[in-house]
């Protein structure tokens, strides 16, 4: 009756402004289908927008792979942003708030990391960059004691 919810990974190109908009729309749709709440969707789409722009501006374009994850009860979405650009020479510096090589605000990498649960950068100078982030849908937002 119902189609399989285990959707296959989707690959989207990142080569222009319009592609960035398309990536944002597709990430939002995928997150909504996986049961992400509005705030979670907004955080993930914002992180995707930052990282896709990095791929475009710093990596000279590339692609993103969207992978829905189903682990037991948990639903997640993994996004891998891949470019074959110059790579990141000093990762620690690139991850610092306010550091920029591209004339932006320097919040792309460091800010995105705060918006997702898992964050991984794989970069070699001259060999391109892959940034992989994962976010998990939580049904009930965790409340901290004392709040």
């Amino acid at each position: 009756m119902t189609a399989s919810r285990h959707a296959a990974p989707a690959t989207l190109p990142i080569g222009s402004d319009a592609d960035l908009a398309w990536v944002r729309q597709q990430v939002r749709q995928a997150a909504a289908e996986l049961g992400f709440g509005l705030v979670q969707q907004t955080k993930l789409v914002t992180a995707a927008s930052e990282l896709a722009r990095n791929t475009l501006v710093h990596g000279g374009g590339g692609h993103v792979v969207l992978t829905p994850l189903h682990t037991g009860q948990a639903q997640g979405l993994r996004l891998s942003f891949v470019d074959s650009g110059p790579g990141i020479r000093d990762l620690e510096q690139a991850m610092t708030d306010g550091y920029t090589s591209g004339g932006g605000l320097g919040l792309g990498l460091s800010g995105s990391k705060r918006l997702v649960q898992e964050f991984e950068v794989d970069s070699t100078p001259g060999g391109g960059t892959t940034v992989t982030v994962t976010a998990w849908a939580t049904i009930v937002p965790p409340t901290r004691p004392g709040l």
Partner: protein
Amino acid sequence: MTGAAGPPLAGATGGYGFTVPVLRLGDVLLVTLQGELHDGMAEQLQHDITSRIAGSRVTGVVIDISGVDIVDSFLGRVLAEIAAGAGLLAARTVLAGMRPAVAITLVELGLTLPGLRTALDVERAMELLTGDPRDGERSP
């Protein structure tokens, strides 16, 4: 880059086929952002608004973002730069109608837009810009 003198209701097109409505209400420019805003379009908008302020006598700008799903660091920078440019041209800018999810996300992103005045909706933004008590009430 386009010339400054557009008709009163012209907005930014950015070459993508859709427009950002820019309305003049008295001394205030009301800019309504909606849905997906391409990077190039945001930059075009910045140019258009600044030109409109210089070419008219507006003293305030309201940017309504109640229809905007996400604000990332690029759009945040453009909004801050629009406000800064308006300030240099003696106009005040109020950002109106930010969605709660956008506000939460911007704080975690680390982009709290200091110096950018905000209001919950357009009505309150207009009050902020036109309700300066030092101007006094016009009496008969």
